[in-house]
């Protein structure tokens, strides 16, 4: 069954401060060399999906620069390929709405002109290596118009998002925004019959200010929705603390193997082609992820260092994320810090963030 993909990148979050000043969550740098949207683009590519639409945010500079014409995901094609479509200005204002009807209506041609059976739709801010093929298969077999993907999570109260009431036949009976204990957390991913999607947009055209999931929630008794349980790692990033945690998850052996080192489903990203990391004689790196092009002379622990950073002699970086081209001066100490691109920390400067409240240093800052 032919499936095309649609990724919503037109949303941000008010919780990230300087990190999302000029970008949407989709293009937030992650994991040393990635941007968050890489995971969805790779999941689509790895399922053999060759037509992918991306709803771009109004501040789309960093996103467009990163995904280009879609080469890393084999989307620079004659037939199908990558379609970057402008989203509405409301996307970045309404905090966190993934599937805003206004955005979907604006790109209705994407659904109309293709002849695919299904559209797999997703957000662009979760870290996961999700195999879409069994989801597409299950959806095709179910005959239902929509299949929602969820993950069972132990403490629903700590999650923000939607939770699914699922009956014994796997049908969604209700969608809630609050939950306690073990819950079925909606993974911002669903698959919908393309023709049903076109009908849906016609039916609810007047509710363009709403999120599509909200509309489904309000009309749940009239829509037959199936479910698919995702059992893999789902790194959700809704605030800086989660961002730090999900970065550090890369140091976990199982997560690293599942998400990043699965030879059948690699995570692709824009190639930068930096030199190998130079560990100097005094370097001391423990339990950390270091990206190409870095020069390490100091200490790094439980941290993620992006490409082309310089950690000078005597500097200590702990529990932190340093994005590309960061310069950490001699004797500087960083603990629980998230530094955006091109940050300079001058020699001897010490910055300590709280464990749940990392200090954020904006792009190009020198401290």
């Amino acid at each position, binding site marked *: 069954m032919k499936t095309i993909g649609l990724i919503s990148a037109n949303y941000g979050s008010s919780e990230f401060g300087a990190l999302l000043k000029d970008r949407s969550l989709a293009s937030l740098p992650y994991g040393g060399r990635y941007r968050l949207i890489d995971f969805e683009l790779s999941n689509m590519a790895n399922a053999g999906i060759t037509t992918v639409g991306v709803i771009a945010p109004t501040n789309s500079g960093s996103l467009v620069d990163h995904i280009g014409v879609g080469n890393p995901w084999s989307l620079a094609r004659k037939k199908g390929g990558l379609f970057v479509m402008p989203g509405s200005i409301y996307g970045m204002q309404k905090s966190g709405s993934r599937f805003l009807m206004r955005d979907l209506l604006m790109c209705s041609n994407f659904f109309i002109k293709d002849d695919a059976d299904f559209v797999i739709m997703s957000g662009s801010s979760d870290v996961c290596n999700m195999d879409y093929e069994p989801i597409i298969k299950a959806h095709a077999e179910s005959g239902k118009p929509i299949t929602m993907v969820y993950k069972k999570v132990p403490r629903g109260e700590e999650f923000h998002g939607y939770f699914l009431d699922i009956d014994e036949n796997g049908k969604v009976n209700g969608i809630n925004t609050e939950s306690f204990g073990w819950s079925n957390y909606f993974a911002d991913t669903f698959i919908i019959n393309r023709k049903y999607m076109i009908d849906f947009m016609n039916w609810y055209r007047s509710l363009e200010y709403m999120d599509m999931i909200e509309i489904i929630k309000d009309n749940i008794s009239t829509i037959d929705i199936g479910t698919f349980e995702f059992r893999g790692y789902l790194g959700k990033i809704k605030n800086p603390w989660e961002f730090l945690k999900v970065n550090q998850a890369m140091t976990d052996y199982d997560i690293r193997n599942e998400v990043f080192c699965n030879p059948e489903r690699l995570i692709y990203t824009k190639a930068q082609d930096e030199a190998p*990391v130079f560990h100097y004689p005094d370097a001391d790196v423990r339990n950390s992820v270091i990206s190409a092009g870095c020069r390490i002379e100091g200490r790094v622990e439980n941290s993620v260092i992006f490409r082309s950073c310089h950690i000078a002699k005597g500097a200590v970086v702990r529990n932190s994320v340093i994005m590309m081209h960061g310069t950490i001066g001699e004797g500087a100490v960083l603990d629980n810090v998230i530094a955006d691109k091109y940050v300079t920390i001058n020699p001897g400067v010490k910055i300590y963030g709280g464990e749940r409240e990392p200090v954020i240093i904006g792009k190009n800052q020198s401290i």
Partner: protein
Amino acid sequence: MKKKKMLAMLLAGGQGSRLYSLTNNIAKPAVSFGGKYRIIDFGLSNCVNSGIDTVGILVQYKPLVLNRYVGTGESWDMDVPDGGVHILPPYAGKSGGEWYEGTADAIYHNIDFIDMYSPENVLILSGDHIYKMNYNLMLEEHVANNSDLTVSVIEVPWEEASRFGIMTADNEGNIVKFSEKPKEPDSNLASMGIYIFKWDTLRKALLEDHENKDSSHDFGNDIIPKLLAEGRKLTVYRFAGYWRDVGTVQSYYDSQMDLMDDVENIDVFTGDMKVFSNSNVFPPQYLGREANIRNSLVCNGCTVYGSIKHSILGSGSVVLDGTVIEDSIILPNAWVGRNCRITRAIINEGAVVEDNTVIGDAEGDIQVFGETKLSI
């Protein structure tokens, strides 16, 4: 199409037999270098950094990895519509086919290819040298001198001159003599195997040389002496900088160590004349809680739990805990188990080193361990 000032022909067909098991399965230019590069990256990157966008790569020996690696040339920004990278294997014609029988013969068989672009000059390169060079500066001299052939030379110590092809030049830089590995050299200018020919001169020489039954069809042995005898204008271009032939295991080892130890001369880290590569998609390296990495180069995709001193870990290689690696080069995708000791050794691409293995020691020749395992 705009007429090309210069097209490059990169000789990449050699076996590199003195690299032993490193080239059992792959051509020498495709051998891994410096963790994430392959030897051919230096030549190809020099081309793109010199503004050359059309390169013919002459392949013959075990070209599979090389062909795949070069691909469309996209990694070197050479996927351009009116040029690009062309893999040129030997091929059959109406009267049958032949292998390339020498460096000049390889070019002879591709005269039609070069004619398609009809460039003013042709740059001949070897795909097995480590150096950074702007060929444009050489071309400028070549054009200013109105030379038929310009040979890039480098000064070598007099005592080593007898190991090289030596150019003897007059005060104006005109070549008066070429001697291959002379016992008593009268010059210390070694040919780097980098030539810029006027295409019409080279074309004529190749056609004539092909008819000569006594010729070995080699640039050094046949074409250069022939042009000298004809009284053509042959000049030297003096290159000063890092240049290494990585023909032996020792020189292959030494020049990789130079990436760490001699950064001033061969710098792959800073932006000037960047060396590009077609690297696979790997996550950034992960270094474990007990890892201890000092004075080493480590690539994307590595997972390290052991101790690494003054060594190079290639992309995607794994080193487990209790293992100590010193003064060694672990090629891409190799896997080194627990409690191993590797000293002054090269672990082949994709090789597996079982737990508790000891390889190499502080004395003696550099050891090469394992067979190259081809994978994607």
